[in-house]
Each structure stands twice: as structure tokens, then as C-alpha cells.
């Protein structure tokens, strides 16, 4: 592209999590750090999870037929996408929706745990060699035909198009946390280069699924002890507490936003991503250092707020702490908050969630209260002008986003 780079603004935010729905309830929950985080310690024991707040899905998904064709993962995502479109003033505006591009970070939907258990019991009863015979006999009558459509990664995007009429284009990125990193980086680059003016980007996770937990726990990644903030899990080996959440943001070129009278929560200055090999200690820290250099090229040392997407998985989380210590040594004086301590680790949705919360903090000019009980998160009197959002995958993938307050922007 020959165009000089365009400014990328965040003009809409849609959030749904254990903290409830919408911007205000998230601000309240994050401010109330002394209060106990919302945890379900029993339902998936020994794994605590952050369950979704009780939500009337019909508020954003009015048609019963649409609700029936989706599973909870898709409900969460479609709902959050609708909130973001509403918040940006795009919802139900055919002209704007027709030029809104959709970028979704997705895993996949639910399995039918009852059917799976039935097949496993049949396999166990039959003995060794007949694995697929049992599955073949049970599945054709037990599986609901529409369940498949709730399992395909790209069908969250498909349902957002159907329910909210977002139609310019639709792309789904996969790959756990890497999905969220890729989605954001790609969307920001497209707008900066003039390849799109308006992009709805985000993701969703339904943590309340044993089949989903299984995928993570194969690698022994889950926290199976009583709740602790992400920075305080190292002594027990680390691990993440999954959280149900949907996080969508509307990214818009500043020119387009100005022309339609939309004002921003914040500006996305830059997003950088990479993949450390993680074959030796220190590689994550080094990649984060390089990414920071790349995205902060114009910055001289100054205080910076850091909204960390740390998962609590070790030694990954410790390497991120080492990087944050390096920032301190380099004069950036980071004021750190790990939003996963409050809302859980939301995997594909985690980077979009962090960018949403970061933009909210900038727009109201105030950081959230620190999680009690450690020396990483300290109280600060004022919020710096810029916010760094980190995204470090529990398996692979590293990303950083730099956000900046827009003077005269939206006030939360």
C-alpha cells in the first residue's frame, strides 16, 4: 500500500464474562479487587473455573431458531459481538454493517458429553479392537445433525453474520491464544494500510465444558488448586483457570470514525506478534523484548500501564515477569494488572479481552485496583498515557499491543 499508515481507533466494545455483560459491569468488577473473584470450585473439580454470569441471551439473539442452532460458545460470542456493534453505533445500520469486516479468533464448540460417555462405555464393554465399530453404531442416531455446526470453528463467525448481518467479509483464525493474537494483528494491519475501514474482531470461550478442559489438561496446563491470582501459582507448579468470556471490539480508521461522528475509547498504536521456540529458558523473555522494541520504537522511557494476559502457566508466566522487570530496568516503570486473575484465562478471547479492558482504562483515565497479596501489582495514583497489553500463549505464541489515549475521546 502506498497510503501512509492510518490511525486505528477502538470505537466499540462488547464484553461478557463472569463479571456480567457490558462495559460498566466489567469496570465495577475489576475495581472491586478486594472482593472474591467469581469462581465455580465444585462443578469441574478439581479445576476451578470462572463461569459466565447469568445472561438473557435473547437480548442480543432474539430468534429462538438462532438460539437453538448454536451452543453456548457461540451464544457468548454472538452476544458479545452484538454488544460491540451496539456500542459502536453500527448495529441495525445496513449500510455500515455491509462494510464491516468480521475477524474471529475461535476454537470450537461443544461436544455432546453424554453421547461421548455412551460410546466410551460401549467401547470398554466390547473390549479391544472394536473402537470404531461402537462409535459407528452409536453416533449416527445419537448425534444431533446441528451439533456439527456448533463445533466448526468458523461457525461463530457464521452466526455473527446471520444474527447481526455483518457481511463485508469473514475470517476465522484458530490456534488457542495465537488465534487472538493473529486476529488482532491482522485486523489492525488491514486498517492501518487502508485495506478496510471497519472491522469487528474478537473471540469467545465457554469454559464450562469438560471436553474443552480435557484438551488443555492433556498438557497438564490447568490449575487444580484453590483460587490464586496468576502471579501466585508458581510455587504449586502454575496452571490456568479458564474463564467463560466473549470479547469483541470494533476497530475503525480514524477518518471513517470522524466522518460518522464516532469517538474512540483509545487508539491502537501497534500490535506485534511472534513465536518463541520455547526449547530453552529465556526465549519467551527475549521475544517479548524484541516485540516491545518493535512496537515502541517512537517511545522514550516513561511510565506505562501493563495489562497482562498472563495465564499462570509456568514457566511461561515467570518469563513474562522477567520481561516486565526488564521494562522497569529500562525506565518504563510499568504499572501491572493481570486481568486473568479477575476474569480467568479466556484463551482465544484473551488478547481481545485485554485490549478491550485496556481501552476502557485509558478512556476513564484510571487503572484498576491491584489483586491483593503480591508485589507485582502496585497501587498507582494516575494512569499513564499509554498501555501495553501482553498476550503470551500457554503453549505457543507471544504478542504485545500498544494502546494510547485519544484526547477528546470517549469517556467511560
Amino acid at each position, binding site marked *: 500500500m502506498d497510503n501512509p499508515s492510518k490511525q486505528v481507533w477502538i470505537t466499540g466494545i462488547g464484553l461478557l464474562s463472569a463479571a456480567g455483560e457490558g462495559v460498566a459491569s466489567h469496570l465495577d468488577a475489576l475495581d472491586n479487587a478486594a472482593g472474591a473473584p467469581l469462581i465455580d470450585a465444585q462443578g469441574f473439580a478439581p479445576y476451578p473455573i470462572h463461569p459466565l454470569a447469568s445472561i438473557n441471551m435473547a437480548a442480543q439473539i432474539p430468534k429462538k431458531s438462532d438460539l437453538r442452532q448454536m451452543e453456548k460458545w457461540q451464544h457468548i460470542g454472538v452476544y458479545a459481538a452484538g454488544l460491540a456493534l451496539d456500542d459502536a453505533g453500527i448495529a441495525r445500520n445496513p449500510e455500515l454493517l455491509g462494510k464491516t469486516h468480521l475477524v474471529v479468533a475461535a476454537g470450537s464448540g461443544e461436544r455432546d458429553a453424554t453421547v461421548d460417555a455412551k460410546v466410551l462405555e460401549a467401547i470398554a464393554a466390547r473390549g479391544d479392537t472394536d*473402537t470404531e465399530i461402537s462409535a459407528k453404531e452409536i453416533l449416527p442416531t445419537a448425534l444431533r445433525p446441528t451439533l456439527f455446526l456448533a463445533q466448526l470453528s468458523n461457525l461463530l463467525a457464521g452466526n455473527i453474520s446471520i444474527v447481526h448481518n455483518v*457481511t463485508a467479509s*469473514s475470517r476465522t483464525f484458530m490456534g488457542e491464544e*495465537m488465534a487472538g493474537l493473529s486476529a488482532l494483528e491482522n485486523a489492525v494491519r*488491514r486498517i492501518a*494500510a487502508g485495506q478496510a475501514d471497519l472491522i469487528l474482531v474478537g473471540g469467545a470461550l465457554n469454559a464450562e465444558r469438560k471436553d474443552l478442559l*480435557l484438551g488443555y489438561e492433556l498438557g497438564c496446563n490447568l490449575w487444580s488448586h484453590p483460587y490464586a491470582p496468576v502471579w501466585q501459582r508458581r510455587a504449586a507448579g502454575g496452571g490456568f483457570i479458564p474463564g467463560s468470556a466473549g470479547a469483541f471490539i470494533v476497530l475503525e480508521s480514524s477518518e471513517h470514525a470522524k466522518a460518522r461522528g464516532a469517538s474512540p475509547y483509545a487508539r491502537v498504536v501497534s500490535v506485534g506478534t511472534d513465536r518463541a521456540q520455547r526449547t530453552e529458558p529465556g526465549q519467551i523473555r527475549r521475544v517479548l523484548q524484541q516485540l516491545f522494541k518493535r512496537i515502541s520504537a517512537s517511545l522514550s522511557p516513561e511510565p506505562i500501564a501493563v495489562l497482562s494476559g498472563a495465564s499462570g502457566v509456568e514457566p511461561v508466566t515467570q518469563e513474562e515477569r522477567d520481561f516486565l522487570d526488564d521494562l522497569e530496568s529500562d525506565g518504563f516503570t510499568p504499572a501491572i494488572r493481570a486481568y486473568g486473575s479477575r476474569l480467568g484465562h479466556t484463551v482465544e478471547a484473551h488478547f481481545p479481552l485485554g485490549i478491550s479492558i485496556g481501552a476502557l482504562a485509558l478512556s476513564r483515565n484510571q487503572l484498576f485496583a491491584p489483586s491483593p497479596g503480591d508485589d507485582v501489582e502496585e497501587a498507582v495514583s494516575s494512569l499513564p498515557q499509554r498501555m501495553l497489553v501482553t498476550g503470551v500463549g500457554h503453549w505457543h505464541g507471544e504478542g504485545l499491543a500498544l494502546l494510547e489515549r485519544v484526547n477528546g475521546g470517549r469517556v467511560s
Partner: protein
Amino acid sequence: MARNFKDSQGRTVVAVTGTGLVSSLGWGKAANWAQLKAGQSGIKTITRFPTDGLRTTIAGTVTRADGQPPSSAPELTLEMAQSAANEALLEAGLTEANGFPGPLFVATPPAELEWPQRKALYEHPCAQDLTGYDRLLAAARSGAFKQMFENFQFATVADHLAVALRPRGLPISVSTACASGASAIQLGVEAIRRGDTDTALAIGTDSSVQLEALIRFSLLSALSTRNDPPDRASRPFSKSRDGFVMAEGAGALVLESLESALARGAKCIGIVRGCGEMADDYHRTRSKPDGTAIIGAIRNAMLDAGAAPEEIDYVNAHGTSTPENDKMEYLSLKAVLGDHLEATPVSSNKSMIGHTLSAAGAIEAVLSFMMMENGLLLPTINYDEPDPDIPLDVVANAARRGVIKTVLSNSFGFGGQNAALVLAAAD
């Protein structure tokens, strides 16, 4: 004569300098081409798992070098992608010791555990009397299945490819269902046009022929049930078509700014002139009856390419052989190409190699470039009873000689994600 390195819209011209291919007909472009031009089918009776009692018992499965079935879909998905990528990189002359010098975009199906893996977990010794997922989770917690973790993440295929190919940055996994392969190419083209990179590797790969996936598509009534003989089942644009045939394969393309390709002395195989997409908001498996989104995707590709309908010499159709797709695709082509459609040959590779799902867009782009290079249009086999409602110039049953400079290649996905590419010959 000086080459023009910018297109009519002032953007970087994106060339293709290497391609690679795997399908149910074989590994590598040469093996595929010899059989495709002879109108041979790769569709066969499934032997990988028992199928008696199922409505569909055929697929375009890929046979591995050792003849053994893969241990899981991600394993074969990765092997095919690696093979196609190696072929493409070799042709492009980009087998550099320090890895591929650009980003990697991989169209791949969502990874998931299959029944053999669940069985292994279920049979793991368990102290308590647990059932269902509680038992599977207890097995996972033992730490004995960490290798399984690495093989069944959504990032697995792209991440393992990144280890082998060492591209720059984060490996990207993209899914737009059956349009994924075209989307991977589009992501690469856009990155080069932005000036993010001089080169990008786009791969589409899919080996979804596992028991549960077959049952799921079957429950949606999407598959052909014409099991015998298998090679007659996929019949795009025929009156008697009754569904698609699931198939496996991979296609890889090295995309490169024309300027940097020529500067390093690489051979230009062709040009990606334009990409277009549009999402449907009508239904999860059917397109809007008026074809708005499909028409929009094709029209956007033509606009992006700056191509007039008369410039399209050949359409590489999505042509799945489902009653719905082929009818809608015809109506949409008619809407965009108008009278020019009558004079435009159309064929669907899926008649021979089945529907390779996430890989289809990439495989069909590779074949489109081969057709332009060889001056030969691959046939649509099993075209014995033309559907009178689809009056197309189908390249029927036998390959046809023809000079083609510009190809329109369509890919339409479940979930309403539609993409189209305009591909051009090298000169």
C-alpha cells in the same frame, strides 16, 4: 521491456513462484497432472475404518508412502502440508538454511481428538471409579499424554509446520470452512500488498476423512450416497448429482512480489490478480436464494483484479456436486459474467479428487496455474446428463486444449464464507 510491478490500483503485483500438491491421486504435481488430464478419479471405498451400515462409504482418501493409515487426521494433514510446501519451496528456489523468509498462512480444519485417542485415555489406569469425561480428565492429569496435547491443539498443524519451515512471525491458522484455502492465499496477497513482506507461503491442507467427520457430514445430508462405483459419485453440474464426496489433499503456493521474484531470478508461474469475499447472513449451510453473497464475492474479486467479465477465459468452479451449490454457483456466475459465461469453459476438479474442504481453494489455485501453463483445461468427469437448469460450457469428461490467460476460481464455505480469486498467467 521493463515489467510493471504495480497493478492498475497502484499496488504491488503478487506473483506465484512455486506450487505443490497432494491429492487422492498422489503426492506431487507430476503424479496428479498425469492422472487428472486423463480424467481419472481418486475416489475410493473407505478402508481406513469400518463403514458397513453407513450411508456413505466412499471418499478421496490419500494413501501414505508406507500404505499405513494415519494415527489421526492432524498427522496426515501435517504430512500432506509439509510435502506440498516442500515441492513449492523447491520450485521457488527458497529452500534457505535459515527458514522461509516470510509469514506462513495455513488453511486447516479444526483439530480434535478422535475415538482412538479417547479410548486410550479411557483405558488409562485410574484409581477411582470414574466414568465419562471425569475419567478422561484423570488420565490427562497423570501427565502421560503430553504428546497427545501437542498433536490435538487448534494450532497444531500450523505450529508443527512452523517448526519445520521456520517462517517469520507467528504461524497463522485460518478457517473459513470450504473457502479456507482461498482465504490463506488472500491473507498472503494482502500482506505483500501492504508491504509487510516480499513473500508469503499459503497452504491449504485437510484430511478430514475420519469416522465422526463422515457421520457428521452425512447427518447434514451433504454427501453423495452413490457408493458404487466410487469413481462415478462426484458429478458436478449433472442432473443426477446427489452430494459431495469428502476428500483429502493439500496445496501450497509461494507468493511473492513480482519485483522481488524477478530480482532474485525466480521463475514467475503466474499472478494472483485479485481476491474477493463476502459473508452470507442467510443460513448456516445454504446461501441466500438470490445469491447476494456469492455474487458479491465473485464481483469483489473481479473488482479487486480490475478484470472485465470478457477477460475470464475459464472458471475453476467450486462445483461440489451438491444440488444446491452447483445451481447457485451457475446463477451467480451468470449474474457476474453475463453473456460472456456462455463462451467460458467451466470445470470442477472435485469430479475427480472430491471435495478437499479446507484445502480446496489452495489445490484449485495450484491446478489453475498448471492449466494456464500447459494450455490444457482439466475435465469435469461423470458429466453424462447435463442439468438443463445449468447451461454451462462444462469441460465434459475429457481434457480440452485451450489458451487461457485469466482464471476465476471460486470457493464457498459452510457458514456463509465465500471467496473468489482471479488468477492470471505469467505473461
